[in-house]
C-alpha cells in the first residue's frame, strides 16, 4: 500500500494533502469518518491544523470584537434587570473569546500571536461587527438575531472533528441559550411596547438586515478545497444551508411581532421549502471585510488601546521563571 499510495503534489486537487504520509492520512480520515475526535497531540495534516487555527482564531476574534457593539450600551441599559443582563452577555462574549483562543492554542499558536494578528488587521473576524449600534434597539436586535446566526454556526461546528474546539463549543452553546432568550425578550418588549419603542426596534431591524443576510457569507464555491474540509469535518454545513436554517427559524418570529423585513422578495417557496430573497450585495460585503466598513477602524483601535493600557499590568505580574507549554486539551 505504501508504494502505491504516493500522492502527487503537482496535481491541483491534491495540493492540500501534498507531502503527507498516505498511511497516516488514511488513518486520520478513517478516525474522523468513524465520528471520533482528533486531539491536540494526534498526527494531523498540516492543512488541517492551518485551517482549524484560522477558523477557531477568527471565531475568537469575532467574540472579543463582538463585545464592542453591544458594549456600546452597557452604561445606558434601561433598568436594573437589563443593566445586569447586558453586562453578563458582553462578559460571556469575552469568556467565549477566552475559550476559543484556548482551543486554538492547543494547535500551537500562542494567544499573543493571535492578538497581534487581530490588531494589525492580518486576521479577520465576523464582518457583522463592523457596523454601528446606533440605538438601544440595535443592541437588542444584535443580541437576538446575530446570536441566532452564531448559534446555528456553532451547533453545526460542535459536531466537528477537533476535540478542543468541540468542547469549547459545547460550553458556548449552553451560554448562548441565555443570549437568545435575552435578545428575543428585549426585541419582543420593544416591539410590543410604546410607539417610540416600536419605531426604534423597526428602524434597528431595517438597519441590521443587510449585515444579517451577509452573516453566513456568500454561497460556497464547490471546490476540492471545500470537499476536503467537509470530509475532515472542519466545515460542517454550507453557507446557504445555514442561511436557510436561519431564515426558516427566525423570519416567521420577526413577522409574528408585526415587524417588517426590508426585503420585498423575502418569502418561503412552499414547494421547495426554501426561502427566496434579494441576493445580498456581496461587493459591499467584500468592501467592508477588507476594512471599508463604518466601524472597522474603531474596532481595532479600541482593541489596540485595551491591549496597550493593560500592558503594564500584565508585565508587572510576569515571572521570568514561568514557562509556556502548549495546552493539552
Amino acid at each position, binding site marked *: 500500500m505504501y508504494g502505491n499510495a504516493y500522492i502527487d503534489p503537482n496535481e491541483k486537487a491534491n495540493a492540500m494533502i501534498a507531502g503527507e504520509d498516505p498511511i497516516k492520512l488514511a488513518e486520520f480520515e478513517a478516525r474522523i469518518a468513524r465520528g471520533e475526535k482528533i486531539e491536540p497531540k494526534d498526527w494531523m495534516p498540516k492543512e488541517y491544523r492551518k485551517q482549524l487555527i484560522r477558523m477557531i482564531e477568527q471565531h475568537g476574534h469575532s467574540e472579543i470584537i463582538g463585545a464592542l457593539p453591544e458594549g456600546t450600551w452597557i452604561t445606558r441599559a434601561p433598568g436594573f434587570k437589563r443593566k445586569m443582563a447586558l453586562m453578563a452577555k458582553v462578559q460571556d462574549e469575552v469568556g467565549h473569546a477566552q475559550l476559543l483562543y484556548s482551543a486554538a492554542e492547543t494547535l500551537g499558536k500562542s494567544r499573543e500571536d493571535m492578538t497581534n494578528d487581530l490588531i494589525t488587521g492580518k486576521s479577520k473576524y465576523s464582518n457583522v461587527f463592523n457596523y454601528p449600534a446606533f440605538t438601544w434597539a440595535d443592541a437588542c436586535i444584535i443580541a437576538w438575531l446575530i446570536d441566532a446566526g452564531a448559534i446555528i454556526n456553532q451547533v453545526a461546528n460542535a459536531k466537528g472533528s477537533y476535540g478542543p474546539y468541540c468542547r469549547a463549543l459545547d460550553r458556548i452553546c449552553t451560554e448562548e441559550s441565555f443570549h437568545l432568550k435575552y435578545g428575543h425578550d428585549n426585541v419582543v418588549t420593544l416591539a410590543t411596547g410604546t410607539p417610540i419603542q416600536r419605531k426604534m426596534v423597526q428602524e434597528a431591524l431595517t438597519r441590521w438586515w443587510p449585515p444579517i443576510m451577509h452573516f453566513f457569507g456568500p454561497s460556497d464555491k464547490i471546490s476540492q478545497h471545500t470537499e476536503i474540509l467537509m470530509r475532515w469535518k472542519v466545515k460542517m454545513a454550507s453557507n446557504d444551508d445555514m442561511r436557510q436554517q436561519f431564515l426558516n427559524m427566525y423570519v416567521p418570529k420577526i413577522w409574528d411581532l408585526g415587524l417588517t423585513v426590508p426585503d420585498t422578495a423575502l418569502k418561503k417557496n412552499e414547494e421547495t421549502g426554501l426561502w427566496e430573497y434579494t441576493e445580498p450585495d456581496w461587493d459591499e460585503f467584500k468592501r467592508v471585510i477588507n476594512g471599508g466598513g463604518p466601524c472597522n477602524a474603531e474596532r481595532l483601535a479600541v482593541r489596540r488601546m485595551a491591549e496597550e493600557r493593560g500592558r503594564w499590568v500584565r508585565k508587572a*505580574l510576569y515571572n521570568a521563571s514561568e514557562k509556556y507549554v502548549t495546552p493539552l486539551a
Partner: protein
Amino acid sequence: MNSIALKELLYKMADDLLIIGHRNSEWTGLGPILEEDIAFSSMAQDKIGQSQALFQLLHELGEQEPDTVAFTRNANQFHNAQFLELPNGDYDFSLMRHFLYDVADQLRFEFLANSSYEPLAKVARKIKGELKYHVFHANTWVVKLGNGTEESKARMQTALNEAWNYALGMFETSEFENDLIASGVFVGEEALKKQWLDTIAPIIEKASLQIPSSNTWAPVFGGRKCKHTEHLAPLVDEMSEVFRVDPSAEW
C-alpha cells in the same frame, strides 16, 4: 426606630453600590487581560444586584420602585460618596478603589448581618458571601502589583495617595448616627472606619505600599448630603439616557 435614619442609611449604601457598579462595568470588554475582564465584570454585576436589593428594601419602606428611584433621580439627589463617582482612570486607580471600597463594604455588611432591622440583616447575610470573593480579588491584586515592577509599585502608590482622602470620605457621618447605633440598626461610621483602617493596614504593608501620613488626612465629605463632583451629573445622565426616553414604559 427612626425611619428617616434607616432610609438615609439604605440610600447611601444603595447609591454607593450602584455608582461603583456602574463605574466598574465600564471596564467590561476593555480589561487588561481576558480572564481579569471576566472577573471584574462579575463583581460589577454583583454590586448592581446588591444595589437593587437595597432599593427593594427602600421600596418596602414606601419609596418608589427600584428602577424609578435609580434611573430618574438627578445627580443632586444621590447619596453616594464622591469617591465612587470619580472616573476610572487607569487600572491602577480602579483596582485601588475596588480594594479600599470593597474592604469597607464587606465590613459594613458583616456588621449589618447583626442589625436589629431584620430585612436588612437578611440581605446582609446573603451578600456577605459574595463579598468574600471581591475582597480576596482586591487583596490579591493590590499585593501582587505593589510587589510587581517598579512601574506597578509606583502606580499603585500614586493611586493610593490620590484615593486616600476620597476613601476617608466614605465614612461621612449622618445626623442620625446615634439613633442608628442606639437602636442597634448599625454600629456607625466611626466604628466602621476604625475596623477598616485595621483591616487594610496589613494588606497595604504586604503590598509594600504606604498609607499617606495622618497629618495629611483630609476626608472629602459632601456626597452623603448630595454634594457631588462634576463627574456625577454626566454619569447619571448617561446611566438614565435610555430609561428616560420613557420612564413609564417597560424596558
